[in-house]
């Protein structure tokens, strides 16, 4: 029972009264209908209040603070000084910012595409109701629930740069290597990307698996009857059926990719030779390691704006496509 039902609203329109002009009566009826449908205006706000208060204090106020700090030289005990856009120019002109931005885009694109492709393959392989599949799916999902610090340490061991390292001994079996992996500026970015894909793909797999249940089975049958091969059925039936899933995954993965920090920080800290420096590690170094919080805040605002633009562009593209 809703609050509206419990406390009926006095409805003057229901009582007999002077005959209103046709248009006015229609408007009154519409208002009454809307009132019954939506209840008091503050009812939804009441339900939203706990979440909004938490968001306000733990998200929006810190965000507004960061925006303010990005225009200040932050000195909590001397009083913050307004410096205009100086922090932004420090970040933009900082050594290696352009490289870091480019690395971030490359890493975000590579991890997004890799995770989605691998996630789709895993989802197609593991679709079904069998008990064993359930076990395999849970096992495949493990990288997502393992803490990132553990993941980074595991991959550091696997990436050991000599011939007796785990991955290098595998490469040795096929006559390749040894590779420096994260220790070689030429292979470090690909190595971090691989770790990210390994961690992100199972997450994408689970969402794609959920999306697959909404694809009409009849379409597969029809495609089969029409003589479509297995690959054609995937390409012409499954992939279009998952379009909305892909677009959501794309936004989530791209945002995750742009904000990549922990695995880079733990595996290479931006090195060697700055080859894996991303915007977040650069912001961390400028803002927190060098105790220049205003500069760090300016970097964070820039990253937020970039993420926002990306999200809005993807939404606009989706809307245009659905029209």
């Amino acid at each position: 029972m809703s609050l509206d039902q419990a406390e009926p609203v006095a409805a003057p329109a229901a009582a007999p009264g002077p005959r209103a002009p046709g248009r006015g009566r229609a408007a009154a009826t519409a208002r009454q209908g809307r009132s019954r449908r939506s209840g008091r205006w503050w009812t939804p706000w009441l339900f939203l209040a706990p979440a909004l208060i938490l968001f306000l204090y733990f998200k929006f106020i810190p965000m507004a603070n960061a925006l303010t700090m990005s225009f200040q030289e932050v000195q909590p005990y001397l009083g913050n000084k307004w410096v205009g856009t100086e922090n932004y120019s420090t970040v933009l002109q900082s050594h290696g910012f352009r490289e870091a931005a480019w690395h971030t885009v490359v890493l975000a694109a590579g991890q997004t595409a890799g995770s989605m492709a691998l996630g789709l393959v895993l989802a197609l392989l593991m679709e079904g109701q069998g008990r064993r599949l359930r076990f395999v799916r849970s096992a495949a999902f493990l990288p997502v629930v393992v803490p990132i610090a553990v993941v980074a340490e595991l991959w550091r061991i696997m990436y050991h740069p000599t011939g007796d390292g785990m991955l290098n001994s595998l490469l040795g079996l096929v006559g390749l290597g040894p590779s420096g992996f994260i220790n070689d500026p030429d292979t470090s970015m690909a190595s971090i990307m691989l770790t990210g894909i390994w961690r992100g793909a199972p997450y994408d797999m689970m969402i794609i698996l959920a999306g697959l249940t909404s694809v009409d089975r009849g379409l597969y049958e029809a495609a089969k009857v029409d003589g479509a091969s297995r690959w054609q059925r995937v390409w012409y039936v499954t992939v279009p059926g998952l379009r909305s899933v892909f677009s959501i995954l794309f936004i989530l993965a791209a945002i995750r990719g742009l904000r990549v920090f922990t695995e880079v920080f733990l595996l290479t800290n931006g090195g060697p030779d700055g080859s894996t420096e991303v915007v977040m590690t650069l912001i961390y170094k400028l803002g927190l390691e060098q105790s220049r919080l205003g500069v760090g805040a300016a970097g964070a605002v820039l990253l937020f704006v970039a993420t926002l633009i990306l999200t809005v562009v993807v939404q606009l593209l989706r809307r245009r496509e659905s029209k």
Partner: protein
Amino acid sequence: MQRSRWVGAGVLASALVLTGCSSGPAGVAAKQNSKATLELWTRTTPGGPGEQGALKLAAAFTKATGYKVKVTAIFDDFETKLQQRAAQKKLPDIVMNDVTQLGAMHSQGLLREIDLDKIKDSEQIIGQGLDSGKSVDGKQYGLPYSAQASALLIRKDWRQKLKLDTPTTWDDFAAMAKAFTTKDPDGNGKKDTSGLAAPLSTKRGYASWYFSNFLWAAGGDFITEAGKGTYKPAMTSTASVKAVQWFRDLGCKDKAIQPGAVTMDTPPTNETFESGKTGMFVVGPYLLPRFDETLGKDKYEVVPMPKGPKDATVLAEGGSVYLMAGSDNEAGQDAFASFAVSVEGQKTGMEGDTAYTVQLPVNKAVDVSQVRPDPRWKTYSQAYQDSGRYAPSIPNWTPVRQATADTLNALMADCSLNTEAKLGDLDKQLADILKEQGIDAS
């Protein structure tokens, strides 16, 4: 709909008002309460022996003075957490942290000036230690409670097996590093050892930290003083370039530094030495208890660093007591600083085999060999007194260390880079950093 918009606007407005309220300058002079418990942060691993040592020191202080102390040990991202507390304007009362953090904290106004007249035994503190606690304007903002310098740890059994003498010159050092890499010193028939352990990651500027031992011994410098408190970049000086080239050859030509060094910070580097993958390590005395336990006291020896092209200068460091701004118990802060440098405080901090807070004493009246009869400590003490050199007190040393670490990391990771060109770029960066801090010589 209209009302919803008003509500939304109200929420946003209140957020902005609250934001505005919280960004004003803080009141530095807090109401004093000498009974208030002092909150002490120390940069050490939680649950480890360092924390035990700090707790012991705090307990002895409470017993001696009556002031209460609550100890918090933090190791990872210590500075970040301190910044978070600064943003809340609720700093701990006392921080025990590296001497090199002075400039960064002072320039942000996080520190209270220390009045040496209120510190008993202040005239007993070793001169260079006391100087390390002075800011660029010559005022005392940190009080050293512990000192340390670097010395060379060598796998004794490896050295004896290969019939090598303890290195006294850089040539001996390089020859030993090469022999440990190529001559199978552990006798397992595999080429799986390296001469030198080195944390060359850019995290906290470790590459620069480590390399300073070699740079200074060669007569080079990161930045040099140019009079009247100004500095100029010095990484392109002949001595600096030679030092970088020599160190680079150890990694690039001789392959005598452990694989993966360029992405390793201190914990994995320590592991290479204790697991028998590396044979030499230039490091402070704080790792002795750990290596005694994991590797065995008889397996390695501690010797002074061999003389470089100029001398045997090594990095001197240590911990300082910082009295933080905004404390409601300044009397308690002063009392703790006094106790930490007093003979009693220093001896208490040095007690034990592992859980100690004080590495080398800073109080001249305390003799390390009396408190710790182990001769290895005497080696460290001698290195500190004879050859120890602190990083200069500039407003913020961290950017200098970070920039030099980035360049050194690049040169060690990519052996095809041109040393002089990279160091030229580094000098330009250093010039910008000095200019930003208002201490450039130009």
